[in-house]
């Protein structure tokens, strides 16, 4: 992906019409004036997903991997078809590398609890960046406490860029895992994953990538990135809540013991001993969210129909436009997101608490997230209680940013005197 130029007057990508895309999302029919700038928390759902899930329940629904009757076989086909869609979306080598879970949080916890104890010794180190979401901090912190390992934090620089030199200096033969986000959910910083993987692998460390913010908006090729694990939540990718994917290299998954146990993940059970299935089923105990997986597959189809290159280009242009418009407003401070800031702009109005900004923006019909964004250590580093965060989706356009800027102006007039 090319570097994002940070000055924009116009944010139009040829052949892409966000207004037409917007019509695919029923929420905007219900709320025509809504300026929705909180897709980083959860994206709205296109008609294809909403209707597709209902249609699946009407036509093909039964439990999966169990029934010998044809309806169950059809449901299993639909479920496994969704797995293949996720494989293709990530360009994973093999669909057995795709595990269906409830979300990125569950995926990270699975790796922490299954891979962790099998591979970590006291004194080993896990490196995370300083722009991680709590879900990519706390599971590692707990694991380290339990096993006597060390959690090491690698910094971003004052421009918001991931500091590769600092990271390289922290890597050592003790490093067992590097767990980093692909795009920061606070600053929009895009991390140089391929390079991080190269450096980590040279030391024999594995790499887990939190792809929640990146996956819905840019091409992601896990083989090109070379990472060992890549996780994302379906609901941030226009899919249903309660769905998510863990991608793991097959050899890594194969080496990992079961995490939760029960039905669907075994080959044989005796009172004395149980034999477990191979991945991915080993990690999918119990009846999965079948319709959720089907819905996630439809969401990935929807994203693919727009084209991730196109979405990246559109959102990159719009991110630049937002940074530009907001930075023209006096007293507005933007948290720097490095050279490749994508889809997220965090800011503050001097002297105004983010919650007050959020309330005023809401009254102007602009939905943003305010607060610490599940990244308290980063807030601490930036020396702020929280930020106002505008995050983009495929349905946003310049008019949304203009209304955001206008509402921010109104807020400033009210509070800053």
């Amino acid at each position, binding site marked *: 992906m090319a570097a994002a130029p940070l000055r924009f007057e116009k944010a139009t990508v040829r052949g892409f019409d966000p207004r037409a895309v917007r019509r695919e999302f029923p929420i905007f029919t219900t709320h025509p*004036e809504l300026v929705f700038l909180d897709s980083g928390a959860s994206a709205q759902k296109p008609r294809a997903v909403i209707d597709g899930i209902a249609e699946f329940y009407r036509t093909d629904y039964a439990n999966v991997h169990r029934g010998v009757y044809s309806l169950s076989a059809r449901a299993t086909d639909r479920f496994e078809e969704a797995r293949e869609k996720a494989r293709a979306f990530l360009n994973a080598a093999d669909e057995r590398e795709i595990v269906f879970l409830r979300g990125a949080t569950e995926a990270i916890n699975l790796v922490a609890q299954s891979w962790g104890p099998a591979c970590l010794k006291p004194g080993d180190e896990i490196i995370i960046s300083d722009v991680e979401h709590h879900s990519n901090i706390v599971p590692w912190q707990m694991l380290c406490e339990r096993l006597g390992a060390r959690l090491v934090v690698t910094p971003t620089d004052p421009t918001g860029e991931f500091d590769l030199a600092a990271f390289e200096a922290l890597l050592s033969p003790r490093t067992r895992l590097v767990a980093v986000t692909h795009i920061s959910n606070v600053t929009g910083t895009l991390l140089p994953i391929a390079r991080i993987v190269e450096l980590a692998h040279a030391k024999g460390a594995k790499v887990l990538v939190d792809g929640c913010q990146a996956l819905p908006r840019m091409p992601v090729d896990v083989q090109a990135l070379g990472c060992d694990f890549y996780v994302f939540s379906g609901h941030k990718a226009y899919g249903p809540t309660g769905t998510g994917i863990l991608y793991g290299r097959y050899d890594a998954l194969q080496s990992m013991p079961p995490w939760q146990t029960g039905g669907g993940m075994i080959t044989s059970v005796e009172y004395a001993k149980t034999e477990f299935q191979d991945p991915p089923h080993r990690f999918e105990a119990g009846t999965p969210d079948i319709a959720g997986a089907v819905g996630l597959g439809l969401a990935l189809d929807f994203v693919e129909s727009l084209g991730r290159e196109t979405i990246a280009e559109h959102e990159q242009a719009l991110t630049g436009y937002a940074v530009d418009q907001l930075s023209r407003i006096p007293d507005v401070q933007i948290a720097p997101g490095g050279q490749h800031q994508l889809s997220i702009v965090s800011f503050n109005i001097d002297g105004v*608490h983010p919650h*007050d900004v959020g309330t005023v923006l809401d*009254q102007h019909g602009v939905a943003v997230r305010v607060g610490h964004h599940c990244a308290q250590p980063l*807030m601490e580093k930036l020396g702020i209680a929280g930020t106002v965060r505008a995050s983009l989706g495929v349905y946003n356009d310049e008019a949304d940013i203009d209304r955001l800027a206008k*509402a921010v102006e109104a807020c400033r007039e009210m509070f800053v005197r």
Partner: protein
Amino acid sequence: MNDSGIDLRELYQDIILDHGRHPRNFRALEHPTHLARGHNPLCGDRVTVYLAVEGDRIADVSFEGRGCAISTAAASLMTEVLKGKTVAEARALFAQFHARVTGGEAGESPETLQDDIDRLEPLTGVKAFPVRVKCATLPWHAFEAALKSGLAAATVKTE
């Protein structure tokens, strides 16, 4: 451009903006008899309330912390109305205030406290903004916790 038809100025009245910008009694007490912290994990707001209780009377009250305009103004106004009150009066004021901002049953309000209830009236604008009610009540919950725990420095959290 106001979908809900609620006027923002009902929430952010001048008196709220003023107390939000220039909070009164914004300091630590040197010799408190009671103190407690309030924490809203949702927004990270923190407030510490200090009391100097002599006999059954609140001789002095102050607060420190960081928060939004609503919680800062609520804490500031709270310290103003609590100073000089008996503990019983203070509790009665909290009950009245809580009912008014949450839309609950206020019960009979003692006539002697009417002036103070009126002074707190500007904060009742939060009623129309349910997600902000906790901002207004946080300092009061900290005050109540302080009364209960003395100098044990209890921490109350909004759920």
